[in-house]
C-alpha cells in the first residue's frame, strides 16, 4: 500500500468494488444508524413513494465511500467530507468506490470522491480533505 504522503496529484487510492447491494445490508444500516425510513427496506413502501423498489440510504453509500481512507488513519484524518447524492442505488447494484488526489495544500490532501454503479453512473460524488498530522 502506497503511503498517502507519496501520492501524486492525479493518482488514485486503490479502488474498492462492493458486493451487490442486498436487503440485509440496508436492514443492518437502518438498525445501526437509526434511520428506519421504510423506503430503504420495505418494497411496498418504496412503491408507494413512486420508486421501482427499495433504495439504499444515501448515508449508507457515503459511509462505505469513506472506507477508502480507513487504512490511513495513522497518517491523519478526514477533516472535511462533502457529498452530493446524485443517483439512486437499488438492490443488486454493484458500486465501485474511487478517490482521486486533486490537489495538495500544505498538509491537506484534497480528493475527488465518487461511487459509480455497474452502468457507470455516478450515484454519489463529492470530495474529501484529508489532513496529514
Amino acid at each position: 500500500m502506497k503511503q498517502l504522503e507519496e501520492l501524486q496529484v492525479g493518482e488514485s487510492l486503490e479502488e474498492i468494488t462492493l458486493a451487490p447491494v442486498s436487503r440485509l445490508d440496508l436492514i443492518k444500516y437502518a438498525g445501526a444508524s437509526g434511520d428506519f425510513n421504510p423506503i430503504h427496506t420495505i418494497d411496498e413502501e418504496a412503491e408507494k413513494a413512486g420508486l421501482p423498489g427499495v433504495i439504499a440510504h444515501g448515508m449508507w453509500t457515503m459511509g462505505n465511500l469513506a472506507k477508502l481512507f480507513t487504512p490511513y488513519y495513522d497518517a491523519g484524518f478526514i477533516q472535511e467530507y462533502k457529498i452530493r447524492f446524485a443517483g439512486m442505488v437499488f438492490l443488486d447494484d454493484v458500486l465501485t468506490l474511487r478517490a482521486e488526489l486533486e490537489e495538495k495544500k500544505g498538509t491537506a490532501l484534497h480528493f475527488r470522491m465518487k461511487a459509480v454503479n455497474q452502468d457507470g453512473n455516478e450515484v454519489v460524488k463529492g470530495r474529501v480533505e484529508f489532513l496529514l498530522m
Partner: protein
Amino acid sequence: MEVLGGGQVLQNVIGKTSEKVRNTVERGMVKRFAEAIGDPHPVFVDEEAGRDSRYGRNIAPPTFPRVFDYGKIEGLGLPDKGLIHGEQTYHYTRPLLVGEDVFCWSEVESYKEKQGSNGRMGILTICRYGESLDGTGIFVEKQVIILTEAVMKGMGI
C-alpha cells in the same frame, strides 16, 4: 391563531436551535455502525489497536454522528416520509473517540424555495454540531434536504 402561508412556516424557524443533548460514543454502537458500512477496521473496533494508534484509543467512522440525538428544534415539524437527502457535509477538527461524551445540537441554517421542472421545491439546510464537554468543537454536519411539491403541500406550505 394565525395560519401561516407560503414558506413562512419554515422561514420562521431559520436560525432556531435545539437544546444541547449529551451523547456518548458507545463502543457497541461504533462496532455495529462500522460493520453496517462494511468497514470493521481495527482502528474502530479493536481495543488494543486503538490503544496503539496515534489517537490512543478507538475512533468512530466519519459518518457515525448520524446516530446521535441532536434535540428538537421547536416549530420544525418535518414529515418522516418523502424527504430527499440532497447533500451532506462533515467538518472535523479531530476524529470522534470511542467512549467520549459529546454535546450535540442542531440549527436550521436556511430555507429557500425554487421553481423546478417538477414543480415547486423547498431546500432546507440543517446544521448539526458536536462539541466536547469543555466546549471545544469536534464536528459540524450540514444536511441539505429537498422538499418536493407533494411534501410541501402535505405540510401546508
